[in-house]
């Protein structure tokens, strides 16, 4: 039998790797990929808590479905923004996109 702790530690590790990627990578698409890793870590946690602590209700899975929808919307808008910025400024490096920086 696998205890809950294994899933939680795995999800924490995945979240921290994604956290590093979001803050340290320079390429905007790599940042979006790292956000996907973080959202997946959250989903593992939601489903693990549902399975181990509250299997009688289905709320954990319903929440995970909503997270899927949010992730799909986020990546669609994010990649559209990146492609639009690339078209006008020929760069996807996050530090060079400083149009709105005062």
């Amino acid at each position, binding site marked *: *039998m696998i205890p809950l702790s294994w899933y939680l530690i795995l999800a924490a590790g995945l979240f921290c790797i994604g*956290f590093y990627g979001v803050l340290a990578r*320079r390429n905007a698409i*790599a940042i979006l990929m790292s956000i*996907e890793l973080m959202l997946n870590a959250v989903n593992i946690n939601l489903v693990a808590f549902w399975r*181990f602590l509250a*299997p009688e209700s289905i709320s954990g899975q319903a929440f995970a479905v909503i997270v*899927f929808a949010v992730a799909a919307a986020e990546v669609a808008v994010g990649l*559209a923004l990146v492609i639009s910025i690339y078209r006008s400024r*020929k760069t996807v490096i996050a530090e060079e996109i400083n149009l709105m920086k005062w």
Partner: protein
Amino acid sequence: MTPIQLVFLFVAFATLWAAFMVVTRNNLVHAALFLVIALFGVAVLFVMLEAGFLAVIQVLVYIGAIAILMIFAVMLTRGDVDDIPDITNRYAGWVGLVAVLFFSSLVILMAQWPSFTALAKPILSSRDTIVELGTALVSPNGYVIPFEVASVMLLAALIGALVVARPRKGK
């Protein structure tokens, strides 16, 4: 060590390794392919947690749509900015330190929680969790409002992405 634990450890290490490769690879196409491995590992974890529907959605939506969309975006934005020598910004060392500290403090905090080592109770074989999930998502006593809001948000994101990414007239 039971076989199921060995399977879990294998999948967990494969997922973490692939995730680490995603954030460290210079070549973004390679990073996107490692992202597919990591997402597939998460799908296997969903199967092990007896959430079969979510595992199928994970493969369909994340691997089938999101990862492929990432690869397309990488290819569309390939120009003279590709293969830049330093892939991380100047705060990368500090960020790595903060990430490791955050991970260890999370584990220490969670270890003090009594349910941390809880074991799963078997799900009754008379239950069909997929039917329950489907009913909960459209039932007025369940999650019909979040579900409808999510569908409106997806529509708005679709239209927004189209408007943002469309080339301007005259250019």
